């Protein structure tokens, strides 16, 4: 465990709205630290549709989602935000001084005066594959990631999927596993052609088996798999030995542990007021797609508006009694100084 990381504002989610929050909070001299479950900033824009053009960002008749993320990063750079990637926030507790302690799934400890939830559709998590009855095996013999290759030594391993994760782990775990069956619903792969060629070469050498089809059934006891049924291939239904399974079916979004933070929820969204965008817990704000209020529209531009107002409220929480002078970036020399531009 590392030491406690202290910041003014902890932002959960580094999507476009979380990023622009850094700007609005920065103008009010508040320092931000962002945590995101992805390995990069940008949220859905970067993960789901980086190349898609967005047409409703004011002033940009058309901008690619990744282009918008890049511009936002450039815009917030003067405020030197800190980022922690590949982490999910797991718990939150209120401190006696009015701040919050937030702990991640890797046990890093953050202390912040204010918490801003900008988690969009929730955190990206591995998608559960469409295999009936998979739940009891999860975490015991079905895994969605490889933490230690040793865990797969001597196992009859079934890997499902056609992307880079599926192919990379097929190649990497082949020397360790007792047997490897790669299952994909078609002979074409999304993975890098080089990995696919290597896989076919290993199949030629009888070092692994590639089957076209879909896994439709699992057998085992007490969470321990023994076999998997594969349907749709040229041989009809086939049962293959399987003591470990690694399905790679992409990512989906889930609210995750935030649901346990004691905030009021409305159908997995966090209700806020439209003056401060504050949740039912004072000092915790929610902005962007994750919040809800009458008339809410899940638009990036709405999120930008929300963070501007939220920042004012957050400043009042952190510096009660301090007079906030409303200023424009076009004319205020003090704001321009913060932005690093000469007035």
């Amino acid at each position: 465990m590392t030491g406690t990381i202290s910041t003014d504002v902890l932002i959960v989610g580094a999507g476009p709205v979380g990023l622009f929050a850094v700007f609005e909070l920065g103008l009010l001299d508040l320092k931000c630290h962002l945590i995101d479950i992805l390995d990069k900033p940008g949220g859905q824009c970067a993960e789901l549709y980086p190349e898609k053009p967005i047409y409703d960002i004011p002033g940009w008749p058309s901008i690619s989602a990744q282009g918008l993320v890049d511009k936002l990063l450039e815009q917030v750079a003067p405020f030197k935000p800190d980022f922690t990637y590949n982490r999910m926030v797991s718990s939150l507790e209120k401190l006696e001084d009015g701040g919050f302690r937030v702990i991640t799934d890797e046990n890093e400890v953050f202390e912040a005066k204010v918490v801003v939830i900008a988690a969009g559709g929730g955190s990206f998590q591995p998608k559960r594959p469409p295999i009936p009855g998979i739940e009891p095996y999860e975490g015991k013999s079905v895994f969605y990631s490889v933490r230690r290759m040793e865990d797969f030594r001597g196992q009859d391993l079934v890997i499902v999927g056609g992307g880079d994760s599926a192919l990379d782990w097929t190649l990497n775990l082949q020397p360790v596993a007792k047997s490897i069956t790669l299952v994909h619903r078609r002979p074409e792969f999304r993975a890098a052609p080089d990995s696919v060629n290597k896989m076919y070469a290993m199949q030629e050498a009888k070092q692994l088996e590639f089957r076209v089809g879909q896994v439709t059934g699992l057998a085992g006891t007490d969470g321990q798999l023994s076999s998997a049924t594969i349907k749709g291939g040229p041989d009809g239904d086939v049962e293959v030995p399987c003591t470990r399974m690694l399905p790679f079916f992409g990512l989906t979004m889930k609210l995750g542990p935030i649901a346990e933070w004691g905030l009021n929820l409305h159908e997995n969204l966090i209700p806020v007021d439209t003056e401060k965008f504050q949740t039912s817990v004072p000092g915790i704000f929610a902005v962007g797609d994750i919040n809800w209020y009458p008339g809410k529209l899940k638009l990036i531009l709405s999120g930008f508006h929300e963070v501007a107002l939220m920042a004012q409220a957050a400043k009042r929480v952190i510096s009660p009694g301090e007079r906030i002078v409303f200023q424009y970036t076009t004319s205020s020399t003090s704001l321009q100084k913060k932005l690093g531009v000469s007035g």
Partner: protein
Amino acid sequence: MTKLTFIAHDGTHFDVDAENGSTVMENAIRNAVPGIEAECGGACACATCHVYVDDAWTAEVGEPEAMEEDMLDFAYDVQPNSRLSCQIKVRDALDGLVVRVPERQG
């Protein structure tokens, strides 16, 4: 207007008038057809608007492009007539199109 028919998993028929140029998914959402989730809003990024095209229509509707095939990898019980409805554009030639909604999306 082009007529589309969605057949929900429980057998309920939804006959809708669709505008040319709109996607089959948009018409499902507008008409609250159960079983079409369209989580990503039509970006071909989630595979939750999966439908089965009626056999009489597969030739006219056509085959998925590579990007859609990739996304179909994440769908449940994919069949040769599977398509993502956000990638089918409504046009005159599809007047009378019938699609079935699968048991579940992913």
